């Protein structure tokens, strides 16, 4: 497996209800890299994130995705999660009645079992979670509440990052985690991501705006539009997009 990218998306084609959304996406992510996926509304960014996580309702009509040397598309969503793939949701759901702490612990133990580790001790779990909550400035009282139940938009996004910090994924795909956040919450989310950056861990950040990338500097920026990656560049591409928008790229692609 040495030398093989962590994630390799080749010519991925996806339809939703018979309509093509992704028309041949290519993306290669090495260990330790942060990739930003940007693009206008309806370009297929969230579709890509959900297909990577295994959500039902998307038909893969062509191409392949390899992750950790395995055919990612052949794995069930829970198998992907246990293999270290984490999806941060754009709209985290509320699950009234299901205890936040319980979900965190069940998720962590599912991953630990997959790695052949024993279940985490209750005390160690609380110590870990409380430390991570401090990083994200989340009130400990939220632990005993229902998952995202009654949380503000910002709290939900911070809770997604908290889950990521506890689960320590190999690859985190964050779908517009920065949307709807004020500047302080944005900094917290960025802090969470930066806390976890390491040579072994990779991130795919789906975002509309460059502002998150002021705080989390990506290795590569990809512009996704009309179901294809139109341009790939470094952090300066995000700044250029911020200045010029997407139209110039779309026009170039159409020419």
């Amino acid at each position, binding site marked *: 497996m040495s030398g093989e990218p962590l994630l390799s998306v080749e010519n991925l084609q996806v339809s939703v209800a018979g309509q093509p959304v992704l028309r041949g996406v290519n993306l290669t992510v090495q260990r330790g890299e942060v990739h930003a996926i940007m693009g206008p509304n309806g370009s297929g960014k969230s579709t890509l994130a959900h297909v990577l996580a295994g959500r039902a309702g998307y038909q893969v009509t062509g191409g392949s995705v390899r992750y950790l040397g395995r055919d990612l598309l052949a794995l069930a969503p829970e198998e992907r999660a246990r293999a270290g793939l984490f999806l941060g949701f754009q709209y985290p759901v509320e699950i009234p009645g299901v205890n936040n702490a319980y*979900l965190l612990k*069940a998720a962590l133990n599912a991953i630990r079992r997959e790695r052949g580790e024993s279940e985490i001790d209750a005390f160690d779990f609380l110590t870990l979670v409380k430390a991570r909550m401090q990083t994200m400035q989340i009130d400990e009282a939220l632990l005993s509440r229902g998952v995202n139940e009654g949380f503000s938009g910002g709290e939900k996004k911070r809770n997604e990052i908290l889950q990521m910090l506890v689960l320590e994924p190999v690859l985190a795909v964050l779908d517009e985690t920065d949307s709807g956040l004020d500047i302080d919450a944005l900094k917290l989310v960025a802090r969470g991501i930066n806390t976890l950056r390491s040579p072994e861990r990779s991130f795919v950040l789906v975002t509309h705006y460059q502002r998150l990338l002021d705080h989390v500097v990506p290795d590569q920026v990809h512009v996704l539009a009309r179901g294809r990656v139109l341009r790939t560049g470094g952090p300066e591409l995000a700044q250029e997009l911020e200045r010029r928008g997407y139209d110039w790229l779309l026009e170039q692609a159409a020419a």
Partner: protein
Amino acid sequence: MQTLERIFSEYRHWQQGHPPETRRHVAAEQLRELGLPGVRDERWRYANLRALDRVQAFVPAAVAPLTPAPPEPLAGFARLIFINGQPASDLAAALPPGVSLLPASGQWYTLLGADERLALLQQLFGAEASVLRVEGSAQLEILYVAQGSGASYPALHLELAPGARLKLIERQVGTHEPGGLICPHVQLLIGAAAELQHYRIQTLGTESVLYETLSVQLAESARYRICQVALGAATARTTATVRLQGRAAAVDWHGLSAARDQQVNDCRVRCDHLAPDTHSTALFRGLASARARIGFDGDVHVVANAHGAKVRQSLRGLLEGSGSEVNLRPRLTILTDQIEASHGATTGQLDEQLLFYLLSRGLDPATARALLKSAFLGDALAAIDIAPLRRQVEHSLGAHLGDLILAGALT
């Protein structure tokens, strides 16, 4: 022979061996006049009345020794046991301080409405109700055990003196042979400013047929909080009538039904707001799998002088399996302008978005589904504020549904 005629035929034959009692005679007259309920009657629309036709014998079953192991007793609760409708031992000796056994009144029960007509079977064949009176504060558990074959007619008349407090657990347990019938009638009179917390747990065997009647009357500022859990029986029907007679009387009804296979479980709660500032809430959660049917009919009436009344209903059903049904009917009849009322009823399958969220966190599909089902029922379970009882119910629920109800998983 029609079922009603068969009932009278059995009654005539059976009463020859018993001293005549006016109450039975009155009940027979009333039953003849009202007849048995039929499926065309909206109030019985979701009940399985065919099970009544298949009852083998309406005459009471003999008293039998207790054979199944009863549930673990709960600390602090005195326990009374009725087997096939009759006290298993001297009730008076088992009563806790604050609760006394009164002599049978010798009077017959006046129906609170035609809804209660199946309680007439209890009057016809059953013993007189055990009459208990509560003063001060008490905790009591009553276990109704059904076993063997035949019919049983438990009856309880319970009065709370003004200002009294009672936690009452009633359990219907046991395993009947096919064709048996359980037809209990419980009457509760809650005095002024008294408070009754009532937990009814039904975990009968899968052959049992239960038609139960619950009549509740509340005086001024009285409080009645009930959590009814229905898991067992082939057919189970609860007919409840709650009368908020005194100013500022209040009822909180929490119902939970989980039915599988071909179980039919329905509950009708008629709630009358008869005085100003009365409050009622009804929260119901029904989970039907395979070909099971669940019904809940919340029928609230607010009379013209009941100004300041508050009514809330939250009814939800969860379907698992293409042949399952949950029928929810929130109904409000309001004859005053000065009222706050809200109601909602929804039925559907498990939310795929929620399921995917849990799977994306590594939970296996079976655990994720069990967790969501537990959460769905959680609102109703939360009303069981006696921790060991809640654990017992969660255990029964897990065994019944074949899923784990995950300890510590719920808020």
